[in-house]
């Protein structure tokens, strides 16, 4: 570490850009949240009324907390399904199963495709009328299995998760894979000489070493989970999917701030209140995550 005034030269240009185009809009959003304002015309100060409406009015709070629950449901899916799957995929690539180069190439490929195209692909597959899934089921003599897919409240979230896995698993998978490649060869050799199979190697040697990549991937995933917007917007529409099963807080914000499809009742004041509330929740999650990781690292350091 150096003590020199040179840091000012390094930080100031970025600081200016960041402040003007990122912090000023945030501050403005906080300010707007205390007003009733449609985006045109006078801003009517209403104190905390927007927040009260969001948290306590029966309809609004029901919609908001349903969406928030979906966000956290997705966080749960990240830790219980997506992350383990990423680790498993990373490991099978790491032990170089047959065609691993091809498989790596293909698993990662959807990550570079834009979300609007992914959403269109989903329509091509799952639309009950024109989609290929129902057509295929009818063609192979299983017409009774045809379904509403995204239009079925019991299926929509599962399909959504499947699409997320298909589309976005590559990034985290490769981060774990790179981490595995850094595990010292001596440890691996020692375990191998001890006669450990691939499974035992995985649990005893590789898994305990993944701390740093787990940190990175879970941070990325939580940001993604709590700012979730593009994909559910494209899959379930702005109203949040069938029976609001694909409604997330950013979409509630979007509907309230910018209105529905043709109706267009814009309400930037109330929308800002939603957004500020979400910002606070995300910050709390981060502090929690940071504390958790810190505690884990302490324990690990203690055990060695």
């Amino acid at each position, binding site marked *: 570490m150096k003590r*020199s005034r040179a*840091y000012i030269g390094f930080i100031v240009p970025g600081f200016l*850009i960041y402040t003007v185009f990122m912090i000023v*809009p945030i501050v*403005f959003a906080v300010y707007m949240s205390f007003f009733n304002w449609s985006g045109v015309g006078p801003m009517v100060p209403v104190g905390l009324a927007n927040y009260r409406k969001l948290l306590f009015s029966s309809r609004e709070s029901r919609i908001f907390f349903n969406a928030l629950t979906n966000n956290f449901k997705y966080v749960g899916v990240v830790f219980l399904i997506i992350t383990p799957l990423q680790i498993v995929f990373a490991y099978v690539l790491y032990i170089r199963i047959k065609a691993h180069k091809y498989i790596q190439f293909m698993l990662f490929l959807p990550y570079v495709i834009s979300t609007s195209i992914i959403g269109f692909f989903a*329509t091509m597959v799952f639309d009950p009328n024109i989609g290929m899934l129902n057509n295929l089921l009818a063609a192979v003599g299983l017409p009774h299995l045809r379904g509403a897919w995204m239009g079925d409240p019991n299926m929509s979230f599962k399909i959504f998760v499947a699409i997320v896995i298909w589309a976005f698993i590559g990034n985290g998978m490769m981060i774990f894979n790179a981490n595995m490649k850094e595990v010292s060869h001596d440890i691996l050799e020692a375990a191998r000489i001890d006669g450990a199979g691939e499974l035992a190697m995985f649990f005893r040697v590789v898994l305990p070493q993944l701390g*740093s*990549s787990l940190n990175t991937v879970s941070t990325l995933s939580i940001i993604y989970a709590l700012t979730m917007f593009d994909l559910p917007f494209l899959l379930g529409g702005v109203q949040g999917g069938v029976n609001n099963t694909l409604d997330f807080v950013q979409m509630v*914000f979007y509907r309230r701030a910018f209105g529905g499809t043709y109706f267009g009742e814009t309400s930037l004041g109330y929308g800002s209140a939603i957004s500020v509330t979400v910002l606070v929740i995300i910050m709390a999650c981060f502090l929690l995550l940071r504390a958790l990781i810190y505690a884990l690292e302490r324990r690990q350091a203690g055990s060695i």
Partner: protein
Amino acid sequence: MTKRRAHKSISETRSAAVAKGIISVVLILYSFIAIYLIGNSILNAFKTKPDLIANTFGWPNAFVLENFRIVLVEDGFMRNLINSLLLVTMGTALLVAFSSTVSYGLSMYTFRGRGFLSNYFTIGLMFPIQLGILPLFIILKWLNLVNSLFGLALIYAANMSFSVVVFSRFFRGFEHALLEAARIDGANDFQSFIFLVIPIMKPVVFTVALLNFIMIWNDFYLPLVFLTNSANRTLTLGIYNYTADFLSNWNKVFAGVAVALAPIIVIYFFFSERIVTGLTTGSVKG
């Protein structure tokens, strides 16, 4: 004892080999989903309109280029492609420049308020950019940058929180001895940053640039709001307009998707190894 263990290990190896084989086959089958979806879109792009209506999932009766002509010439996708490239290049370059210097200043120096500033630069991670559009629009207008690719690139550059986190992690493990040596050689701080630090951090620069390249390339929301002029529409925005109303654009949407996918898949095909390793450098260490 040794014998038994050896025996067990051989049978385990055999069953492990079978298991590995099965995993390979399953994953190869799984990969057909992507091949089919992409392949089908590209094939559909060559179909005539009646062919596409009657036969959405099969092989084209004949290959025609009419859809591409409409998309590229009439709907200006060539222009959109150039706009996208300009925007992505400017956005990524500005973002890397600003975020790397900020992280360097934050990580390599000690000064009062450093902790506060580090947190300050991460707030942006949690803020939905949609909410900022109104103040952003007003700021851009004030700077006379509405409807300009450069103005939008500045907004992308300001979205630097994630990059700052990644760079900062990298700098935390940086060898200070190297800098000391450079200083003794008479280099000032900026010279050593440019001539010593940047060459060393090439892989992490590549990572950050690539992640943001993909993010900016795929974003349709900000272009929709800030590039209202059809002359500076981006490729992803063009695609979004097609897919959002695929009923009226049924014959164009596949050609549009094919045009948008082609460059990114070609790049990925040739550089996939580098892209994948690049993405992961810097995100593991720390």
